[in-house]
Each structure stands twice: as C-alpha cells, then as structure tokens.
C-alpha cells in the first residue's frame, strides 16, 4: 500500500525534475452513513476515498491537475501533458505558492479528531435512530411516518506538500444525527427538522431528543398563513440569523471583493455598521466546526476581528486576493483540489449580546419571527435581497400564529446597520454562527 506522505513527496520531486514548483494537496475521507425508516435500516453506506490536487507553477503561471483514487502511475506523463497548457496562460504576478518565510509558524494543537471513527457501532447507532423515529411518531398522531432518521460519521485526513518545504497534515472527525418530521392536518403537510452535529462523538448529548424536537417544531407550523405586505420588525432565530451572517461572510470574501461581486468592496476601515456589531473569525476553537490548524495554502491559521464595533477591519483572504488587493495574508485559503484555492472562514461569529429568543420576542412586542429562509434571492453586488420565509406573527411578545409564503426584502448592509438587539443564544452547529437578532424595518411581502 502506498504511503500518502511518500506519494506527496514524490510528486513534489517529479515536478522539480520537470522544472516547475508545486503544491500537492491530498484528502482522504472515510464515512459511514445509516438511515432508519419505519423501524428498519433503509440505507447503509460505507466509503473511503482519496482525492489529490496538484497545482503546478512555472513562474507566475499555474496549471491544476486533479484526480481521485490511487491512480499514481504515470505521474510524470500526466504532469508533462498538463505543462503543455502553460503556453496558453498569461503571467500573473499575484499567483504564487507561499514561500518558506510565510509557511513558518508553529502549528497549534487543536482537538478536531476524537479518533473514534473506527469504533462506531452500527447496531448501537441503529438503535438510537429507531428511538428517534419512534419518539417523533409517538409525540402526536399528526406526525406521519415519512423521512428516515439519519446518522453520519466522517473522518478526514488532510496532508499538503510543496516545493518550499511544506509538509503538514491533520485529521478531523465529524458525527451527526438528523431527523426531519412531517406533520399532516386537514390534508396539508409541513416538514421541519432538527439535528445534532459534533466533532467528538462524546459531545453528542441525548440524540433521541431530536425526534421530539423536530416533531414539536413541525406541529407549530401547521396552519400557516400569509400576512399583509408592509414594513415590520423582524426577529431572526439563531438558525436564520446564522444564514444571514453567512451572506455577510461571503461579502467579506477577498476574491469576491476583487471581482467586484461584493457590496463590501472598498469598505475597509469604514464604520459601516452599528457599534453593537463585532464579528470574529477564529480557527482555533477546540472541537468546533470551523477550526483548522493551517489553511489550504499551508499557512498557519490566525484569529482576527473582522468587524469591530461596526468598523470593517479585515476581509478574508487567500494569497492571491491578499496580494492583488495589497493586504496582509489572513490564513483563510480553502483546500481546493480541483481549482485554485478559494476562501473559507474559520469559526466566524457575531459577538453575542444578552437574552434568549423569548427575551428578544418580549422586546420586539409586535413583528415577525423568522424561523426559515429560502436564500436564493441575493444580489451580492448591491447587497439587495428578497428571501422567501416562514415563521410566526408575534404580538405583545407572544407568537400568535404560523406565517408562511411571504418574503422579506431589503439590503444586507442596511440590515446589519439596523440590528437593534442581539441575543446570547448562539449554538455552534456550523462554522458560521449567530445568536438571534432583531432588525427594524424590513419590507414584508405577503397579501
């Protein structure tokens, strides 16, 4: 069996022999997925895969070669063939590999892999999934047996090499339980889901509860109706607030800035937002979804305030966008195997304020609580958005009835300027995380 560390080094050497520099990125993934429906296993999947990305540099020109599997034969021929394309490329001084100096820096140990992937006991997990489904179905007769309860375990090994001495690796694990409950009343159906997702298996507490949580959520949605069009206060739950924050992260993406695709172009150093907005990007948090010890170009990770008290301090960069915009590296290159490195966040979060969702509901008094968003209507260049949404109509701080088939529209910059209150109820389920927040004056489209 080939050792990945040797494969990587061999490709680096081969590239050297053929007169070019290279970064080789190798990703090995293993996964186990189980789904249970109506008390029995519906699908059982196991897999192991290896993907390799080779970036070949000749001066400031860059060719990418990507392949899957263990097909490391004829590498020399493959590289030679790829290098023939170099003639079509134009020199771009901003395209390069990180040099030895930039690759320096001690790797911080971050707990990301619990080492227990191989111990996952399929019968035990299957038992839990059966209970999740049973709990949901027993919760209320209106809950219908429909979608499967799902478990997923994954482990990834990431190893990158370069002609400038880069040779670093890390492992990460990930486990999740998911259930999507369907409820039916008067011939109309609704669906809602709940999940738990952790890097360490031991951090998954009481997975069986997601059955009843999903059931409770979907039952509340039954009988949703439209509301009148007009301007309203809008409260975003942690789930939907995190989706909104994700759009802000995209707008801070250095490559989007560079391409003119972001409404935050040219905003560095500007106090664009209210003083209650502080956003941090931290890749070091133990066991967190967005953590990584080094980025996709091998640069040691760093944490940073992206927005401090309303002022934009930094974009998120890979080496290309940083160089082209003449800004410092931020260690946000994503590991891309079949393209140039993109940009990713670490654990990217809005600094919490105080109060949970109920507290914010009381503060809002009257308005719309948004629990679900259909995010397709975003104009990244201007920040204008119009999203489909569902949630609850709130009066006197109390949810009165479910609302659906309506839209909220506005401008993302304005939205973040008009955040009146921020809660402290953030839950780390994905790498971009926000507590609930209350926004004044969004345009609601209904009847």
């Amino acid at each position, binding site marked *: 069996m080939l050792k990945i560390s040797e494969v990587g080094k061999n490709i680096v050497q081969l590239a050297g022999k053929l007169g070019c520099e290279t970064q080789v990125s190798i990703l090995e993934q293993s996964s186990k997925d189980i789904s249970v429906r109506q008390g*029995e*296993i*519906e*699908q*059982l*999947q*196991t*897999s192991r*895969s290896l993907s390799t990305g080779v970036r070949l540099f000749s001066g400031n020109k860059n*060719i*990418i*070669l*990507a*392949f*899957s*599997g263990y*097909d490391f034969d004829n590498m020399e021929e493959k590289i030679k063939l790829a290098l023939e*394309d170099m003639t*079509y*490329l*134009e020199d*771009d001084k901003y*395209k390069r590999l990180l040099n030895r100096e930039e690759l320096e820096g001690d790797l911080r140990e971050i707990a990301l892999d619990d080492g227990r992937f191989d111990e996952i006991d*399929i019968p035990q997990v299957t038992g839990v999934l059966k209970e999740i489904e049973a709990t949901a179905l027993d919760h209320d007769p209106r809950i*219908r047996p*429909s979608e*499967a309860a799902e478990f997923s375990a994954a482990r990834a090994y990431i190893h990158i090499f370069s002609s400038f001495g880069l040779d670093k690796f890390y492992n990460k694990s990930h486990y999740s339980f998911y259930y999507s409950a*369907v409820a039916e009343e008067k011939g*109309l*159906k609704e669906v809602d889901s709940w999940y738990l997702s952790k890097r360490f298996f031991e951090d998954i507490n009481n997975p069986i509860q997601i059955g009843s949580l999903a059931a409770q959520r979907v039952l509340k*949605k039954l009988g*949703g109706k*439209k509301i009148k*069009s007009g301007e309203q206060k809008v409260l975003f739950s942690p789930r939907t607030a995190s989706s909104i924050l994700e759009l802000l992260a995209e707008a801070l993406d250095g490559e989007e800035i560079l*391409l*003119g695709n972001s409404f935050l172009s040219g905003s560095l150093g500007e106090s664009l937002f209210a003083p209650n907005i502080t956003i941090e990007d931290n890749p070091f948090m133990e066991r967190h979804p967005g953590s990584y010890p080094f980025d996709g170009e091998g640069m040691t990770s760093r944490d940073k305030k992206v927005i401090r008290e309303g002022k934009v301090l930094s974009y998120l960069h890979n080496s290309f966008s940083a160089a082209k915009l003449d800004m410092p590296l931020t260690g946000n290159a994503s590991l891309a195997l*079949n393209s140039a490195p993109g940009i990713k966040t670490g654990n990217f979060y809005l600094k919490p304020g105080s109060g949970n969702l109920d507290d914010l509901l009381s503060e809002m008094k009257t308005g719309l609580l948004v629990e679900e968003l*259909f995010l*397709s*209507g*975003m*104009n*990244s*260049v*201007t920040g*204008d958005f*119009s*999203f*489909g949404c*569902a949630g609850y109509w709130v009066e006197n701080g109390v949810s009165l009835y479910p609302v*659906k*088939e*309506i*839209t909220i*529209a506005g401008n993302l910059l304005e939205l973040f300027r008009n955040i009146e209150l921020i809660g402290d109820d953030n839950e780390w389920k994905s790498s971009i995380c926000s507590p609930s927040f209350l926004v004044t004056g969004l*345009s*609601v*489209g*209904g*009847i």
Partner: protein
Amino acid sequence: MKEDVLNLFYRSGLPPVEKVRKMINQPLANKGEFSEIYLERSVSRSFRLSERKISDIVTTSSSGAGIRVVKGNNTGFSFTENLAEPHLKQCVADAAAIKGSGTVPAIKTGSKGNDFYNIQASLGQPAGPKVELLKRAEQKAFSLSPYVEKVDVNLTEIEKTVYVINSLGIEAYDIRPMISFSVSVVLNKDNRREGAFQGGGGRFDLSYFDKRSPEQIAQDAVNQALILLEAKHAPAGEMEVILGAGESGILLHESIGHPLEADFNYRGSSAFTGKIGQVVASPQCTIIDDATLANERGSINIDDEGNEAGRSVLIENGILKTYMFDGITANHFETQSFNGRRQSFRYMPMPRMTNTYMLPGEYDRQEIIASVKRGVYAKTFSGGQVDISSGDFVFSVTEGYLVENGKISHPIKGATLIGNGPEILKRVTMVGDDMVISDGKWTCGKEGQNVPVGVGMPTVKLSHITVGGTANA
C-alpha cells in the same frame, strides 16, 4: 463501442467483466434481492478568463465503482476508486452488510442503445481554439459598454462514461459529453454597480457555439446588467405575474417537479402524495419530463440504473398522471423506472428530473402582456427552492419588468416570487404558444447530489402570486 468502454475500465484495473458479474451476484441469496455495479469514469477540462487574463486551466479525472445490494426496501451501498478485484470484493461485502427482509420483485432494466447526443466530445481537442472563445467573449463584453468593469468567462467540458451491470443480467453503457460556457460581468455606472451572469451549453461539442456564439452570450450578460442599472425596486404583494418563455421552467422544476419525484411520494412526505388522477393544474397545463431531447443538458441515453431513457407526461390537461421513479420506488408503485440518476459513483441513485417543460398553449405573447392591468413580467431567474411537504417554493427573478395597463413599463430588480406548488398551476390563466427550452445552464441539487437538468416553458400568465420586493405595492 461496448468493448471500448470496457477497455477504459480495464485500463483502470477492472477484472474481466465475466468476473465482475459473478462478483455482484455472489451476495444474493434470496428472491427479492438485487445487486448492481455502476462503473464511471469522468474527465473534465476547464478554462477561465478572469481579470483580463487566461488565469486557470484545470484538468480532472476520476473513476470508480458504486456497488449496491438491495434487499426489499433496504439498500447497502459502498464505493471504491480502485477497480482492482480485492477492492471491488470489499465493496460488495460492505454493501451486503445491509440487513433486511425483502419480498419486493427485482428491479427491471433494459436499454436499446439510443444516441441523443450524436457527437464526439471535443474535450481532447487542443486548448488554443478554446482559449480564443473566452477571449472573444471578453472582448465583446468590454466593447459593448464603457461601464463594463469586470468580465469573467468560463468554459468547461466534461466527458462521463458509465457502465452498469446488475444482477438481472442487464448491462448498459452511456458516454455523456457536456459543454458549458458562461460569462459574468460587473458594470459600474456613476458608482452604481450591477452584475449579471449568462451561460449556456448542453451535450454538445464545440459546435454549440454555432448555435450561440461567445459574443452573443457576452452581449446577453452585458445587456442584462445594463437593464439592472436602470431597474427600480420591485413591488411587494400579491399580483398578476407573467412568466417569460424559457427560464421560467425553473418554476415547474421547483414547484411541481421535485414534489413529483417518487421517493417523496413513496415516503408520503410530498404535497402531491395520493393526488394521482386529481386536478392539480389549470386544464391548459401539460407538463413533461423528457430525457430524450437531442443535446439538452438533462438528456441521457440510459439512466444511472441502466434503464433506457424515457419521457413522462407528468400532468396532462391539468390532471396529475404520474410521478418520476428510480428502481426502488418503481417497484413500490409497480411501474417502470427511467429517472434514477446519481451525481457520481460515490452516490446512490434516486428519482431525478431530466428536462422538464410545459407544452405550448394557444395564446400569443403580446396578447398575454396586453391582458395584464398591473403586474410583473419575470424574464430570467437565478434559482429557486422548494419545501417538498408544504409545497411552498420560492424563486428569484434577475430580469423582470413592471407591467401596467397591458404594457411593459420599467425594469425592476430584487423580485422574488413565492407560492405553493399544488396551488400555483391552478392559477395559470393563459399559456403562450412560444415554448422554448432554456439554454442549458441549470444544475439541480437534491440531498447533496448535483445533476445537470433542462427546463422549458412557454409564456404563462398567473392570476396572482406573491411578489417580494421592497417598493410598496
């Protein structure tokens, strides 16, 4: 041809096909069990022009096998990127670990060797002329308007070869080419900035560009951005809406297509479950899913379970006729399947759309516009989403216009349409005679798997739907 395809996999270490057949039959003990190997090799080459430079050339290749063992309703699945015998055997063993008690009859398959593409992929041809296509699009874009600030052009060619063998003795293969070309632009006029994206392609070689040139695509992108620069905010509230021909097919795809995929109906989670034979649309509506259209993005010769591709009338004159099936759901509903598709050998197949469109009606487009007192004309879309159970869907209009007193007045931006699948087609009051399939750029995502699809639509008028904009209605 079949030998050429097999040789491709033999070169990656596949044991002789006779041995593979035996191997996949090995775990089967009881009636009602089924097994399958899906072999796939995919190669791609893409070119990007960005920031006035040819900036990236990417070549990828991947091959592997996905192995399924099905017992009744229960599926075991495993894949490997190594086609050598020990790895396939391990995969079969992993997939066979599924525990179940099946009594459902075995999956039916068959193929008679269609060719809906009829081309040789141009993937292997020299890069020089392809690079020129990108440059032509860029030059055209910059020449069209002084406001053009950024131009990004992409060309991707893919050739995917699949070979399916199942335990019923069925073997089928397909060699699927795909070309896609896109231009995105950002315009800046007096510090007001707007972007636009235009793309197209399908199962073509470079002859695609005889149909629509790089210059044409660039021009369409710049024109759209110019229109957006002049656009006013969209109104909000319920109103009459005209769906333009072509891209509005995304509405069918989201609001009708997804809820008619049989897996949701088999599980009972779709808003259309149990509605076969019922009126779900205006009698003017007949909706088709058709994998057999020549060179369209969603076309396939066989589906990814080895069945000959087909055409389904989903809704006929307003009445729901059928769902779309993969093998497992077809067994459940006791019918035939040809909509089993998968992103790659790393995934299990499931019911998916191919090319979905509405048949043309009798009205002239101008007649439809003239009939609207105050509403929105939605011409192009950036995407959409649906909630399968409630049927609620949303889609985003990129280029749209306000219609007042039967005339198109000014362009609007930022409009979202939101509605309910089982309701929306009942609100169709006029169907135009101008059906077109939208030039291929659509990719459908479902449960983490992406597959290329086509959509099509004539001009259609809806009596009312909620428009989500920021201006007051």
